[in-house]
């Protein structure tokens, strides 16, 4: 068993694939992160990300998969679902080892697993599109903090940019400490230094004048539309798991 350690980027992953085929390293275990921190007694091979090699692998993938198939693979990787690198790698190997396009070979465990990962990631993305609650700040920016299970912020750009085109907004992933900012023209990723007094959750001091009014109206609305005689807590919690509540205006 060879253990490969790569930097966590998609290019890094593709470089690792290149190394595996070039040096015939199989069976293989793939890990993310600094190679120094890995287990002591295994032989660890660090992968140095190499754009030229990554591109060669990417070209190969494009020949064997549809454009949507490559996109799906990319999404499954950047979402950083923990412990799935080996399955993503298994999928890529299955792609290269087959003569035909294997995207729909759901009887294969790697293809099925990738479809499961994709389902999880898309659900999380969709939840963010639903559960993000903007708060209007006094400079007119609409601000929302999120803590998604997976790294879905990059997948949210298109939706929010085409929807809220006429307002400045910022979505900040406080778990991964980076955010997305839209300035009425374009979006960019940003990192902010929050000191103790200026934590992203303590934005109340910066609220616009009418922010509290609309929050309170929304809470009222939420309570008014409930039909008590149909109460179904299990279903309620299945739809909005409790970990999302702390950022939901109506559940705080």
């Amino acid at each position, binding site marked *: 068993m060879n253990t490969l350690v790569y930097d966590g980027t998609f290019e890094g992953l593709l470089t690792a694939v290149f190394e595996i085929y070039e040096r015939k390293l199989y069976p293989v275990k793939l890990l993310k992160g600094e190679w120094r921190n890995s287990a002591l007694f295994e032989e660890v091979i660090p992968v140095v990300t190499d754009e030229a090699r990554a591109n060669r692998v990417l070209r190969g993938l494009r020949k064997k998969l549809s454009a949507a198939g490559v996109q799906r693979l990319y999404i499954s990787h950047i979402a950083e679902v923990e412990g799935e690198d080996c399955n993503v790698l298994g999928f890529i190997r299955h792609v290269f080892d087959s003569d035909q396009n294997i995207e729909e070979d*759901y009887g294969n*465990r790697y293809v099925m697993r990738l479809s499961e990962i994709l389902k999880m990631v898309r659900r999380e993305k969709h939840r963010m599109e639903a559960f993000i609650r903007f708060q209007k700040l006094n400079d007119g920016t609409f601000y929302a903090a999120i803590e998604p299970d997976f790294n879905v912020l990059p997948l949210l750009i298109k939706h929010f940019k085409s929807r809220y085109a006429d307002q400045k907004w910022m979505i900040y992933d406080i778990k991964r400490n980076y955010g997305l900012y839209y300035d009425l023209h374009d979006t960019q990723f940003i990192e902010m230094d929050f000191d103790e007094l200026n934590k992203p959750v303590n934005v109340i001091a910066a609220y616009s004048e009418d922010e509290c009014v609309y929050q309170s109206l929304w809470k009222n609305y939420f309570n008014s539309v409930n039909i*008590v005689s149909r109460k179904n*807590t299990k279903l309620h919690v299945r739809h909005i798991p409790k970990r999302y509540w702390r950022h939901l*205006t109506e559940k705080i």
Partner: protein
Amino acid sequence: MNVDRITEKLNILADAAKYDVSCASSGSDRKNKDKGLGNASNGICHSYTEDGRCVSLLKILLTNHCIFDCAYCVSRKNNDIKRAAFTVQEVVDLTINFYRRNYIEGLFLSSGIFKDADYTMERLVRVAKKLRTEHNFNGYIHLKSIPGASEELMREAGLYADRLSVNLEMPTEAGLKLLAPDKNRQDMIDPMQFLKKEIIQNAEEKKLFKKAPMFAPAGQSTQVIVGATSESDEQVLQSANYFYKNFNLKRVYYSGYVPVLADQRLPALNTAVPLVRENRLYQADWLMRFYGFQVNEIVNNQNPLLDLDIDPKLSWAIRNMQVFPVDINKADLLMILRVPGIGLLSAQKIVAARKFARLGWEQLKKIGVAINRARYFITCNSNEFEKRDLTGQNIKQFIMASSQSKYIKNTQTQLNLF
């Protein structure tokens, strides 16, 4: 802005609107125009109430003043409740400000009938017009078409709204006569007929001129209340099927009657909401729309009621054991869709995956098939399959014993209340 007054109005008019179950915000294809606000496409449920229903739209009445006296409705003329009315501007402000905070997908505006149909409809249209033209709002708008409103107003409504709906209220004409003597079924059917015609005409125009204005791009829907009158499921589903076929409806909603008023024509106030029945009706509706079932395969003279213990697909399967077992690796998609425990997505995955290799139990399980139900009805790439000669009744018993129905507990708590 008088916050207390708005809050009170919102509470009254949201409370009165909540028995309308339509919540869809999908099916439209409205793009964000000129860097304005919002768009509408696939539909998003932004929140869920404690009863587990989704909150997608700001669903309110413009007013709960009403000249009608329908027995099943909280806003009936003779009901002694607080009345309120929003101004057009108030609805616009609420919609825009909720939308900007990502609380909602758009607006669902209905109203009690004050003065007459045209007067009411004109106000609803004015809200939609203001949102679209003055605020460049491209989010979803669902308007109620008021029975009896003029064709000019209905046409204007279609230009601003994504979806229009008229509620049939009762599954049959007799039911309507009994509970809503002031209302006339034909008055509800006329606007549906008109909208159907306009929508088809608009689609034709769209083919010729890409720039032709959109007309109710998300189509029309309706709602029937079940459990308030004595219709059988067969009558309810036949009626739904009729409207799907003849009026191109996108959806028929089934609303389990929530006892809100004491009236000798209605179930008593302490009657439980028929939640299981409602759920079975939706399952049957899905079978009709997505699984290729004919309505009389689901309910007919011999089986006028849906089985409450098991879902309608399983129910159909155990009445038709002669078509099983189905070979997963050979049968066509439509047959696989009829197997209990296999859903739409699983069926599509099966048909795609078997081109690569024959599928066995392990793969079917991974694909998402509910094996504990499907195993009585299929064979696959394995020597293990159900070899006993079981009757439909046996299978029903086995499946019910091995699965925990989410309803059994529910029914018990409902019984315990009384």
